[in-house]
């Protein structure tokens, strides 16, 4: 957990502008909270969606492979049933089940990776103690910057945030 200053902006343009300027001034940006996804902001703050993509690919292909194996094993080895003289290993119809179930499991693996990457479910996060936190899901664009070490610097940073257009600044823990 780290102490931050949470600044609320009216719109995304002011938030993005503030992040750019604060970065130039070497202020450490901890996170931002927005009512809708702001294009490019998450990537700029270092979010990495690779685990989600990898999980979906591995989950989907792995499941599809397993399904195909079950089909082949059951139809050709375990229960070779003659249906209209069709070959036991009827590969042209085998892709249907692996595709359907593979896509489903890609989604399920992706969801698991999404939850793991974002630390959810997390019903009791300290962010919710901040009064401004409820506005992030509604109408305010919040910026969390690392709390400076000294009180004097903290005051200067608050003034700076207000100068950049923040209409409210609050101390919080993240």
């Amino acid at each position, binding site marked *: 957990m780290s102490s931050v200053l949470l600044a609320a902006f009216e719109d995304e343009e002011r938030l993005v502008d503030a992040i750019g300027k604060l970065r130039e001034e070497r202020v450490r940006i901890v996170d931002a*909270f927005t009512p809708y996804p702001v294009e490019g902001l998450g990537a700029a703050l270092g979010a990495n969606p690779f685990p989600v993509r990898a999980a979906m690919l591995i989950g989907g292909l792995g499941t599809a492979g397993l399904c195909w194996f079950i089909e082949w094993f*059951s139809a050709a080895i375990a229960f070779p049933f003659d249906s209209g003289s069709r070959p036991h290993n009827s590969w042209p119809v085998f892709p249907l089940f692996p595709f*359907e179930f593979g*896509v489903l499991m890609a989604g399920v693996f992706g969801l698991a990776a999404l939850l793991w990457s974002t630390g959810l479910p997390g019903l009791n*996060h300290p962010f919710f103690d*901040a009064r*401004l*936190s409820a506005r992030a899901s509604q109408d305010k664009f919040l910026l969390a910057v690392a709390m400076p070490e000294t009180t004097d610097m903290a005051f200067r940073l608050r003034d700076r945030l207000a100068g950049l257009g923040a209409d409210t600044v609050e*101390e919080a823990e993240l």
Partner: protein
Amino acid sequence: MSAIVSGAEPLPPAGETAGAPQGERLTHVDTLDAVNTLVSGPLLDRRRWRRWWIAMIVASLLTILFFGSMIYLFYEGIGIFGNNSIVVWGYPIANYVWWIGIGNAGTLISSMLLLTHQHWRAAINRLAEAMTLMAVAIAGLMPIMHMGRPLYFYWLAPYPNTMALWPQWRSALIWDFWAILSYLLFSIVFWYTGLIPDLATLRDRAITPGKRIFYGALALGWRNSARHWHIYQTYYRTMAALATPLVCSVHSIVGLDFAASLMPGWQETIFPPYFVVGAMYSGFGIVVVLCAAARWGLDLESLITIRHFELMAKVMLMAGTVMFLSYATEWFSAWYSGRGVDRRFLTFEFTGAYAPLYWIMIFCNCIVVQAFWFRTVRRSLTAIVIISILINIGMWLERILIVWNTLSHHYIASMWRLFYPTLWDWLILFGSLGFFAFLYLLFARFFPVVSIHEVRELVHREAIR
């Protein structure tokens, strides 16, 4: 630790932050909080639900009828349906194809419009996705009801059993089972993922502890972090990219149920793509009706606008024209093949016992929709809703006629026999409509019918234009 150090605004209670005063309708939504108020307002207060209760009572009665009929069916067996030894498929299969088509359309609409950056989807995608869940769930019940021994439906899944039996992978029934199961679960995941940020909004706007806990638990602690949004969007878009081929494959498999046979009128390569277009067609029709109902019932005129209906009318016009072309291709292929059985089947379609229904189907699916060439019709809500209902009647007729026409007109004349529906056929059909309405009303009562976070983004996009 949390302390407000400058200029903090106290958070106003839910439903009173912005927008129109109580009792007035918002005619223009131009702020983020107006969107929040408009969509979440009805969910968080106890007023405005009189119409809902009236609809709920009707839907509940039909739902009781549906499950009552189902219980009687399980007790008595499928002899209560109009199926006979020749027309072995009847209403449950037609209902199944119709419902799964409507279900497919929901995800198709949502995912395709997302992938093609159609931002207007924000107002209708949630309605369409929820429609998918309910329609696919109902569709999944239909083949089970049609089974002679429904208690053994799980034999379709590969599981260790003392009989050492395995599923028959070359059977269309197995393809259906996996297609429906996978699609239903996938749709639930897709729908719920899209809902998470909106549940967080409801959590933060709820004023009663019960609602805060309910929405808070379902929101999983979503914090609207920019990092989370980035990962979330990657996942959501990938799901949309996966959903599109999944939907096409699911309804293609339904088409293969027929096309993989050797029957006249069924054994056609056009079936899979024409089933997919038909699904989108009937699905858009139902989405139009649901949008009109939600718009009226929840005062969402400023979010679901005539412009949305006009765009949906254009898509239906395109789909209806493709359907017409598909029918014409079928007719031409049957005639051009020169096979006696196919030509007899074609003649039976236009002049046989079910010909009046066939002509009504052509009227509903191909002719009526041509009215959408006229802008005045596309901008008339009443006209669009009536046409959408007619399209769905036409699409249901198409499903039942695919079954009836082929099965009642076999290769040999000694196997020509007609199907006469019974009361139970009708009760199951109308009961399923009631059950759909029941589920939908529950959804509308507890979850936002419009994607709040996507509309917020849309409002911002419009504002900076």
